[in-house]
């Protein structure tokens, strides 16, 4: 038990410390009285802030409960909570039929799975941790609906004296929900545990999951008494939480139910196969850890690797010698690493590219321009990051930064300009020559600003390249892009004369060249 408890407590302490670090207090370093006072301050501040946010949500929920109107607000609230619980439980059950609900990191696997620790202790502590981490959205839902109940039933503006009743309703709803969620989760975990006991494989386990989901779904959708008894413990507890039934009487049943389920979990966990659980969950644990740390690069890389699988027959894409091979590389990388999210992102940039020329007023135009610059600049910076993040490979190619820039700017500009013009043709029926002239110039300027932003940082800290940790797009890049766009758009907005094209093209070429030279200069003089 001691080894299990040590690993478990370290995990919990680590996650708690991480949250405190985000709030600005590092429990490992900050030990002075000032730091302790700050800790008290952030606890009070966040408590008040969370309470304020919850009351705001509650007022919206109260308005919705009043609007629904047909039945009592408590019944509606209970139905909403049952629906949310049912949806999550169904998803978790489906997943538990294939992947262990017990998630272990590589360290856990090394420390626990290969040692003769008590499987029962692991099962109960891991269940408790998962319950604690995943109950939060349901807790928020219960508190908000509990508060909303009071607001609806009071039928008046609540005052300071109503605060104890208001908070009491939230706490009651929270406890009922926490217990209900624990029983639902223990049922799911018990189901998952039965699959990974010992080494045996249970075939068609997903059919069993589908049958259970179907059974509970039918119980929720029909009024048949034989089926509705299945949901009774949870329904009664939630009704008690919403004040629609005696509180302790209501939660008693679900309490007993949870106790029995946890007892069964403890009993059957004796033969829990930890190594198998660790094997099944290594990937999802890595992904969870990356998401938890906000490491989007790792998340993206893992998604792509999963999709790519093991191997691929050699591409039939024709390859050419020289710097054109950079385009070959990019086509392969984009086509194989393509995600639906990329399409949405490109679609957004494309729509904004067209909308810039049809904004109804200066306010909307500035807003569209700012979002366009941010999205396109980000895309350009990401492309350059994807190249420089393979720094060793890059140093092995006989190309300079100029070739990389050429093969980044040309395809992006041609594709975006062509599709934007096509969009204009389809929806407006024509492409004005002035737009045809200004469009590629502005696109190139924003792409250059994105590249500039990356090169600006790595030129000051080239050691970043050696560890393949290239920074992302920043506000500086966006400002550079907006400044560079000022004159081309100013010329564009002036009354059209025969000089307009000359000024836009002339100034555009000057700006593009200056930015190009600036980037090359920064690159060659990197430190």
């Amino acid at each position: 038990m001691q080894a299990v408890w040590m690993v478990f407590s370290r995990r919990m302490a680590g996650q708690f410390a991480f949250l405190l670090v985000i709030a600005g207090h590092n429990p490992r370093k900050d030990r002075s009285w000032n730091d302790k006072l700050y800790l008290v301050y952030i606890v009070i501040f966040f408590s008040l802030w969370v309470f304020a946010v919850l009351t705001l949500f509650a007022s919206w929920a109260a308005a919705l409960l009043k609007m629904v109107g047909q039945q009592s607000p408590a019944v509606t609230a209970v139905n909403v909570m049952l629906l949310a619980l049912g949806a999550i439980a169904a998803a978790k059950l489906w997943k538990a039929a294939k992947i262990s609900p017990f998630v272990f990191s590589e360290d856990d696997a090394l420390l626990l799975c290969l040692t003769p620790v008590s499987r029962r202790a692991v099962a109960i502590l891991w269940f408790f941790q998962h319950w604690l981490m995943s109950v939060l959205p349901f807790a928020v839902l219960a508190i908000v609906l509990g508060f909303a109940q009071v607001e609806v039933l009071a039928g008046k503006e609540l005052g300071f004296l109503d605060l104890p009743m208001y908070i009491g309703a939230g706490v009651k709803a929270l406890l009922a929900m926490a217990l209900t969620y624990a029983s639902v989760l223990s049922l799911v975990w018990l189901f998952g545990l039965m699959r990974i006991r010992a080494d045996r494989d249970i075939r068609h386990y997903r059919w069993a999951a589908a049958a259970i989901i179907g059974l509970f779904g039918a119980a929720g959708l029909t009024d048949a008494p034989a089926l509705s008894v299945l949901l009774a413990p949870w329904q009664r507890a939630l009704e008690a939480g919403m004040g629609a039934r005696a509180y302790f009487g209501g939660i008693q049943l679900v309490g007993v139910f949870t106790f029995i389920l946890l007892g069964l979990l403890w009993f059957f966990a004796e033969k829990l196969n930890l190594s198998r659980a660790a094997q099944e969950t290594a990937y999802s644990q890595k992904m969870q850890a990356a998401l938890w740390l906000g490491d989007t690069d790792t998340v993206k890389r893992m998604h792509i690797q999963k999709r790519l699988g093991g191997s691929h027959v050699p591409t039939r894409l024709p390859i050419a010698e020289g710097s054109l091979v950079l385009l070959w590389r990019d086509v392969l990388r984009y086509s194989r690493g393509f995600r639906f999210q990329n399409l949405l992102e490109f679609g957004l940039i494309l729509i904004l590219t067209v909308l810039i020329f049809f904004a109804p007023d200066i306010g909307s135009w500035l807003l569209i321009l700012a979002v366009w610059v941010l999205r396109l600049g980000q895309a350009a910076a990401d492309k350059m990051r994807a190249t420089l993040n393979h720094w060793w490979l890059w140093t092995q190619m006989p190309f300079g930064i100029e070739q990389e820039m050429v093969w980044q700017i040309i395809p992006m500009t041609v594709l975006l300009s062509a599709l934007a013009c096509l969009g204009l043709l389809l929806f407006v029926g024509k492409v004005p020559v002035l737009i045809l002239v200004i469009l590629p110039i502005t696109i190139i300027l924003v792409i250059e600003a994105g590249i500039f932003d990356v090169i600006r940082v790595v030129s000051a800290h080239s050691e970043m390249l050696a560890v393949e940790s290239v920074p992302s797009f920043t506000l500086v890049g966006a400002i550079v892009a907006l400044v560079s766009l000022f004159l081309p758009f100013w010329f564009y907005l002036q009354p059209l004369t025969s000089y307009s094209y000359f000024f836009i093209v002339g100034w555009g070429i000057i700006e593009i060249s200056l930015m190009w030279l600036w980037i090359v200069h920064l690159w060659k003089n990197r430190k």
Partner: protein
Amino acid sequence: MENILKAVGISRYFDKFRALAASDLDFHAREITVLQGPNGAGKSTLLQCLGGLIRPSTGKIDICGFDLYRQEREAKRHLAYVPDVPRFYQELTAWEHLQFMAAAHEVLAGFEERAEKLLRSFGLWDARDLFPHNYSRGMRLKLGLLLTFIRPFDMLILDEPTSALDEESTRNLGDHLHSLRAEGKAILLSSHHNQWIEQLADRSLQIQNGIIQEG
């Protein structure tokens, strides 16, 4: 002897920490130089500086007469570097990586025969269509070496090339390095594999606390 790489006054600092003291170095054609020193002595920093991965804080590096930073493209044509843990594009297979490198260096003529020969000699032929993230550390190192051998170069820098290789592959690498030396290449490598480097080395450099001495 023909001078391939010439470094004048190169040093490297990380903030105030001196990883590499100012040094002048020359590497010649038909010469295998071995760099030795304890962990943390500055071997990788020196190799990364010479390989163009880290810019030195001071000094200048010429490869075949081309400045590594002012004439980057020309210099990179003559310089090859393989780290101890190479990283690859995850979307390209091993075969496509070789194809990519050969095309970049404009040596696609006869690519398939050369690639097959190299892949077979390093035991990667059956794994040529795998994505590198499915490779073991040793296989990645071999692919890193093959990406270098598929293209022309005059100066080859290897950082701990035997750290993840089995005995047979290490012997095989030694044979390749011997034939490269015979072709007139300059080779600089670091390794803790004493017996292996004794058979290879024409010249030895010792590094301690960032200070380099002929050994």
